[in-house]
């Protein structure tokens, strides 16, 4: 490369070198970085869409975007946040951290790893390009219920189907890679019950992905044949069943919800012990609780469908099963509190985000428990109460979890400490804005405002205005986050190898920044070491 610089074609060659480095990389750290950057970009795109909706919802009446566009923005916001922001962020963290945490030199299947990442930008290019197509983007909500999405869907629905297939392939390959890595590449002496909790939660999440992504693929394939090949899976006029669509979708969709939160549980379980300077309380029960939640996630899908005319027996079954999830989830929350109990705590930004995660996720858990009660669900279903509920588990849950992880591990990734003062400002403003945005939605929902409407009656006006203002502030705080991350990557106080004084685990034994290749010789874990 040095020779090329002398020939005078430096800029072009440097570009080719740069592009081929990132296009062809098989290094888990570089691929992890790619995942995180893609997720960050899509987070801002989907966030801008949310803010567009909040502009329209600032006041009753149609002001800025009409219903035609609103439904498209609504659909893409959901799809991009779920498949583009949250899931790739967690996969990026897994790529970076799982080999470092189990003492492996890389992921087990590096070329597959490259392939599963590079599918994604194209999947989202296909999905987002539908915005510029004749007939507009998909406009049926991220749940794409048939027949609105089949018989009545816009032509771009086929691009959506292709996009979902690609995302599914990427997720399945990524999950296989994670499982193979964890099963085969653990350092000598690291038994399953010595794995860090983040590795455990991802291990379980990967199995969830392998089990449900094919179901989603089947679902969209049935849509495709309904649309173009004369089948009637979901078309009542042809003897099909629109409710079956919902059963299939939610059999994917409910485990998917846990795919988006279990790695967050793992992150909180890494961070809280570090800053409490005390071992994680109830390690075994944490693992079992995660497995229990994963199992239960397969038998509760019906709670999304209580108003579809289910028989009483099925409603009772799904209600009881759903309520049961509160037990393992409660165990996890109690364990985190017990970890903090009589520790010696400091409150750096990762710890703040982790505590914010636990508290606000618990609020989302409370409303989830309320939603499980079928009689009350008759009133909550498809209102803003549900919108409030799932944004509480996703925003201060999945997204705060990711941010906690970024603050926690960023010094290890780039070798520089982030700006603690700015980090704290980011946490407090984001926490304020999250609650300002989503808490009033509980009230509008209870008062009777349906979700997915661009216009509403006068009684909901005040709280909607509050939510809108909150959402814009929330968007601004994430620009601050972007600034903090860029500033940290570019420079700053050098991080030590251990970074945090209370941190335990193999990832802190390698230098900061972590060199491209680590653990070429596997470390050996003794009986009393690490967890």
């Amino acid at each position, binding site marked *: 490369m040095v020779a090329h610089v002398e020939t005078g074609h430096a800029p072009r060659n440097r570009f080719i070198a740069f592009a081929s480095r990132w296009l062809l990389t098989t290094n888990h750290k570089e691929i992890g970085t790619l995942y995180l950057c893609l997720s960050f970009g899509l987070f801002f795109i989907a966030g801008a869409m949310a803010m567009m909706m909040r502009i329209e919802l600032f006041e009753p009446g149609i002001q800025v975007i009409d219903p035609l566009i609103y439904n498209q923005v609504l659909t893409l916001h959901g799809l991009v946040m779920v498949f583009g922001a949250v899931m790739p962020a967690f996969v990026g963290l897994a790529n970076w951290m799982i080999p470092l945490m189990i003492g492996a030199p890389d992921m087990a299947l590096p070329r597959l790893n490259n392939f599963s990442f590079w599918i994604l930008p194209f999947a989202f290019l296909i999905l987002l390009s539908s915005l510029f197509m004749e007939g507009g983007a998909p406009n049926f909500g991220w749940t794409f219920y048939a027949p609105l999405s089949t018989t009545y869907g816009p032509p771009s629905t086929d691009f959506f189907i292709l996009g979902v297939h690609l995302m599914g392939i990427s997720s399945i390959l990524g999950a296989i890679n994670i499982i193979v890595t964890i099963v085969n590449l653990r350092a000598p002496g690291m038994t399953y019950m010595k794995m860090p909790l983040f590795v455990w939660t991802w291990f379980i999440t990967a199995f969830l992905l392998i089990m449900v992504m094919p179901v989603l693929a089947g679902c969209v394939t049935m849509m495709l044949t309904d649309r173009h090949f004369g089948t009637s899976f979901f078309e009542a006029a042809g003897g099909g069943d629109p409710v079956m669509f919902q059963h299939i979708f939610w059999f994917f969709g409910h485990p998917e919800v846990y795919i988006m939160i279990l790695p967050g549980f793992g992150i909180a379980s890494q961070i809280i012990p570090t800053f409490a300077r005390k071992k994680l*309380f109830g*390690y075994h029960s944490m693992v079992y609780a995660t497995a229990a939640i994963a199992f239960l996630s397969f038998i509760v899908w019906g709670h999304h469908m209580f108003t579809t*005319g289910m028989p009483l027996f099925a409603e009772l079954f799904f209600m009881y099963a759903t309520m049961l999830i509160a037990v393992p989830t409660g165990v996890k929350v109690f364990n985190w509190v017990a970890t903090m109990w009589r520790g010696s705590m400091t409150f750096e930004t990762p710890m703040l985000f982790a505590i914010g995660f636990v508290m606000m996720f618990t609020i989302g858990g409370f409303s989830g428990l309320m939603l499980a009660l079928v009689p009350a669900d008759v009133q909550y279903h*498809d209102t803003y109460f549900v919108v409030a509920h799932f944004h509480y588990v996703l925003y201060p849950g999945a997204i705060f979890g990711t941010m906690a992880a970024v603050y926690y591990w960023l010094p290890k990734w780039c070798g520089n400490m982030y700006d603690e003062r700015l980090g704290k400002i980011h946490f407090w403003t984001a926490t304020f804005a999250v609650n300002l945005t989503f808490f009033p939605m509980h009230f509008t929902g209870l008062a009777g405002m349906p979700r997915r409407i661009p216009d*509403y009656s006068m009684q909901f006006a005040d709280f909607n205005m509050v939510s809108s203002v909150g959402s814009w502030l929330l968007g601004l705080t994430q620009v601050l986050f972007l600034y903090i991350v860029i500033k940290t990557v570019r420079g700053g106080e050098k991080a030590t190898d251990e970074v945090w004084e209370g941190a335990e685990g193999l990832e802190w034994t390698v230098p900061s920044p972590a060199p491209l290749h680590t653990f070429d010789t596997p470390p050996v874990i003794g009986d009393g070491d690490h967890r």
Partner: protein
Amino acid sequence: MQRSPDRRRCDSLSPARALKSGLAIAALCVIPCVSIADAIDMRPGVTELSQRIQQIHHMSFWVCVVVGIVVFGAMFYTMFAHSRSRNPEPADFSENTQIEIIWTVIPVLILVGMAIPATSALRDIENNEDSDLTIVVTGSQWKWHYRYLDAPISFYSLMATPQEQVQNLQPKGEFYLLDVDNPLVLPTNKKVRFLVTSDDVIHSWWVPDLAVKQDAIPGFINEAWARVPVTGVFRGQCAELCGLDHAYMPVVVDVRPEDEFDAWIEEQRLAAELAGEAAVAARAKTWTMDELLPIGEEVFVTHCATCHERDGEGQGAKYPALNRGVITTGPIEGHIDQVMNGKAGTEMQAWAPQLSDLEIAAVITYERNSWDNALGDIVQPLTIYEAR
């Protein structure tokens, strides 16, 4: 939600009323708190079941509040008491089987306590037997259709809020987006069974005050019921995303005393007969362009303009322009067929069952002779009658 204000009557000024006024003024100081509590609570509604559901909501809410106080209290306490400055030496414990069993068992007991009232209320909600009156509720994009199985009455119910209010050209009314042309009329104290279905996509028929939310699914007939003990007007909305105008298909239920309800049924019967006679008269007559255009414009604005836009320019490929359109300027038979029978697989529905001969004739005449279209065609109601 909105019970009609006519239920509150003050007929005369009396000492008792003066006392009430005094109390009301005193209460003004309390009202802000009360109204805030109302604004953030689930609506109690007016039926026995809706009130039971509100109680279940309160129960689960307070359980969550208590658990929240305990858990968050513990968290805040430990953050305060066990920070490094107050507790420099961390304790060294990480297992306690006993306490883990306790905090597994206690939540299970709480959940069982919550499941019992929920189960019993659910059994009552699902008991659709012994109804006095049955109504078929059919959703379609974007209106509701009601059919009384016990009387020869059926009608469509469309949002009555004018587009000018939606577009912010007029001030918004009290019942903005929650007003319809023909509300569903029900008697008090009768068990009314709703059979809910759909003609196109999935909708959801929801009246919060009656605690009835039932998905309208094509190919399925779902059941729900309500027994309303009070008179009043109760408003709700479609609760399942159903396409472009999902926000604009309200549900309005007008509950009347039994005798008034019976009188209304009789009135509707007569009106149906009159409409039949008017239709016969309309067929017999030869209409002029000037007579048809205003009728056609009204029909167009009510039914067609949401998709095709008032200026006939449509909204992209999905909702094509009628101004200089292929069909609206093509052969008249094709135009009549499209309006009467709709276009399969699109949101263009069959209007033959929904509109009268005169209305269909007038709207086609309007579309062929408005904006830049000037074909000069006049469609007569008789032509439509014969095309049926």
